[in-house]
């Protein structure tokens, strides 16, 4: 009983995708944050060294015999060379004009407070430069003169450093993402573990095991498990009820019928009027038919019930067939028929003994029922082509061009069944049992052509 489950999505996949999406978002944010941070640090450190250079140049500006003069320290420019191989420009200017350096260097805008550096980014000689400008007031012959020093450096070294740091930041981001994804995979895996172990525990159960689930489960799963438990308990009640009903029904139907039949037999012996006798015989025949039909219907209900939850045990098929042959021997003898059992080897297979017995008995019943007096019925237990087979062959004329498949449908009876009691359920039961065991029912005419041969085949694994 494996109905297809309507599957829509996967908790694990959804969880994994959500976690990985968050990880990707965080990794991107991390990358941008680190990038912004290193850009700041790189710019700040560049600004600082420019400022140091400008400060030391400004310190070297002095007034000598009424003239402003500058003696740029070697370190002022060489320190810029230690940072990167970038081009260096500078300018020392007074309100009167440029004292020395690069006269056309773009200098930061409005004057600021003395000692306050003014940073700017500009273009000079076809390159982007970062510059700092500092002011200082000197006294020349009693008059204050503002001296302005600018130091600039191209930024290709900084750009190269930033590019390198960007790669590091990118690796950091990617590394974070990979690690987080790994952890996400692990955590989704572990979060569905209770679900998986519950599933395993339930599928491992035998068909009759209808105990409620008692293993500890996470709180999120407790509504599901309690629903499942209540479902199981309802199922158990329902099953028990059906089982009781079948047993009860069998008892309640068969017993009164048997009583009525016995009464009819007794009455038949007492009555001499031929017309009445005929009516009574008809009545007995009807009772037989009802009794048999009721029996088969209950058998069928039982078979359906058992095949739904098939419990396999080791069954000795040969023994089972021989038993049945012995048990039905008296019935056969009543009709002056001979019932032969053939079976040498012991054939064992996993199966439900009661069901198998029921199936074989139904076929055998049919064979005996439709056979005439003095005919013979064979029951054989054989192994053939990897299958365990029970063959029942009779001399009742066989099936005449009928759809043998149709005979196994419920309540369908053969052409020769008009004068015989029966419900048309015998072969249906046999087929359902065969199929529940993974086998099949084969209906054909016997090789001699005098009767039918019905075979139950079970594959041996």
């Amino acid at each position, binding site marked *: 009983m494996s109905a297809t489950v309507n599957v829509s999505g996967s908790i694990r996949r959804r969880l994994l995708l959500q976690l990985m999406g968050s990880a990707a978002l965080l990794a991107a944010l991390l990358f941008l944050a680190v990038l912004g941070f290193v850009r700041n640090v790189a710019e700040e450190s560049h600004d600082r060294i420019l400022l140091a250079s400008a400060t030391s140049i400004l310190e070297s500006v002095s007034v000598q015999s009424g003239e402003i003069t500058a003696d740029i320290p070697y370190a002022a420019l060489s320190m810029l060379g230690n940072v990167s191989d970038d*081009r260096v420009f500078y300018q020392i200017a007074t309100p009167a004009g440029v004292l020395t350096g690069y006269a056309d260097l773009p200098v930061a805008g409005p004057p600021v407070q003395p000692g306050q550096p003014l940073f700017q980014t500009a273009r000079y000689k076809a390159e982007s430069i970062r510059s700092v400008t500092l002011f200082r007031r000197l006294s020349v012959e009693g008059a204050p003169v503002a001296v302005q020093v600018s130091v600039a450096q191209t930024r290709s070294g900084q750009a190269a450093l930033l590019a390198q740091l960007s790669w590091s930041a990118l690796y950091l981001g990617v590394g974070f993402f990979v690690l987080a994804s790994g952890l996400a995979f692990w955590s989704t895996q572990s979060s569905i573990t209770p679900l998986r172990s519950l599933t395993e525990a339930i599928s491992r159960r035998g068909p009759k095991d209808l105990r409620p689930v008692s293993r500890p489960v996470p709180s999120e799963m407790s509504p599901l498990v309690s629903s499942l438990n209540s479902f199981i308990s309802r199922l158990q009640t329902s099953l028990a009820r059906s089982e009781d009903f079948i047993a009860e029904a069998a008892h309640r139907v068969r017993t009164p019928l048997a009583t009525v039949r016995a009464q009819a037999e007794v009455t038949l012996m007492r009555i001499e009027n031929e017309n009445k006798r005929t009516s009574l015989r008809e009545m007995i025949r009807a009772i037989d038919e009802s009794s048999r039909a009721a029996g088969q219907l209950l058998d069928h209900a039982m078979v359906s019930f058992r095949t739904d939850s098939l419990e396999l045990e080791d069954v000795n098929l040969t023994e089972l067939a021989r038993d049945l042959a012995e048990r039905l021997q008296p019935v056969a003898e009543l009709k002056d028929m001979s019932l032969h059992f053939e079976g040498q080897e012991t054939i064992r297979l996993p199966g439900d003994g009661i069901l198998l017995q029921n199936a074989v008995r139904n076929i055998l019943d049919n064979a005996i029922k439709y056979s005439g007096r003095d005919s013979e019925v064979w029951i054989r237990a054989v192994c053939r082509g990897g299958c365990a087979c029970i063959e029942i062959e009779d001399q009742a004329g066989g099936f005449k061009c009928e759809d043998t498949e149709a005979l196994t449908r419920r309540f369908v009876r053969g052409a020769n069944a008009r004068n015989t009691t029966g419900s048309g359920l015998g072969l249906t039961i046999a087929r359902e049992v065969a199929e529940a065991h993974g086998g099949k029912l084969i209906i054909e005419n016997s090789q001699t052509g005098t009767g039918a041969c019905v075979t139950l085949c079970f594959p041996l694994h």
Partner: protein
Amino acid sequence: MRNALLSLALTFLTLATLAAAGFEVEERHWIGPQDGTPLRIISTTDTAILAPLIESFLQKHPGTAVDYTVANSSEVMKAVLKGEEQFDVALSSAMDLQTKLANDGFTRPHQSAFTALIPDWGKWRDHVFAFSLEPASVVVSAAGFRGRDIPRTRQDLIALMRAEPERFLGKVGTYDVALSGLGYLFATQDARTSETYWRLMEVTGSLEPVLYCCSASMIEDIAVGEILIAYNVLGSYARARQDLKDKIIVIDPEDYTHLMMRSAVLLSGGGQPDLAQRFVDHLAYAAWSQPPGAEYPFHPPSAEFIGAANSKRLIQLGPGLLVYQDAEKRRRFMAEWFNAIRKQ
């Protein structure tokens, strides 16, 4: 055989064209086929010294010629700044001027497998490429110092000149820092390195020193006994003069000896940028491959540096060199220097 080839290939240009250049040219040669594509090089290095390197370059690149102009380093700078004549490559011993050219945007960058051979301290910004390492040495007359102690340090020189002023009067020579860019580089580096330099210049100044434009003439004058001591001479030139081996003594001062790097830059105004790059590659390979090419005229730079004692001080390429190119700084330094050297 090679000399014959060279003399055939060399063609002196007329002085008329030299004057038109707007800067002072010492010599100018056309090397290679007359109709070859010219690579224009302006250099402070004498033609004869670099000729073998140029010839091997021309062999590798048939159909090209080299238009080789020699000028002193200040004139090289002037030629590039004025830009009246376009050159492809500038070779100079004045590291500060080469650095200034590269800093002020007159050069092109270049990177290749050959420039990768140059150690990091031998290049700046992939614009300046060193191809030699040469010491600033003291050269003294062998005859003048026969039987006497050879000065080993600047202190020795000072003591020597103080002890016998009359013997060295008018017999001491050094670069004229106003004329020679290399002389100015050596002087400024000396001044930066040690106070001893100024004492040495003071003493020298009291002896009516002779000021020179170039190392070659200082070496010649030592050899003929015109002067006894020449300070800050290119040791590489002096040692290369095998013919004067017995007449001059080359000393690398033990207190410190500056190592100068002769360097090449690719000028952005040049008309043959590809050829210029290949020439720089050729120079770099000749100088820095192990061992250097047979046509390489200088002492192998890597060996020079590896074998250097602690007293050897490499002049670092970098923006620090721009400081002494500052007009104010230069004016002050010149004033101070001439004040020391012209003290009568």
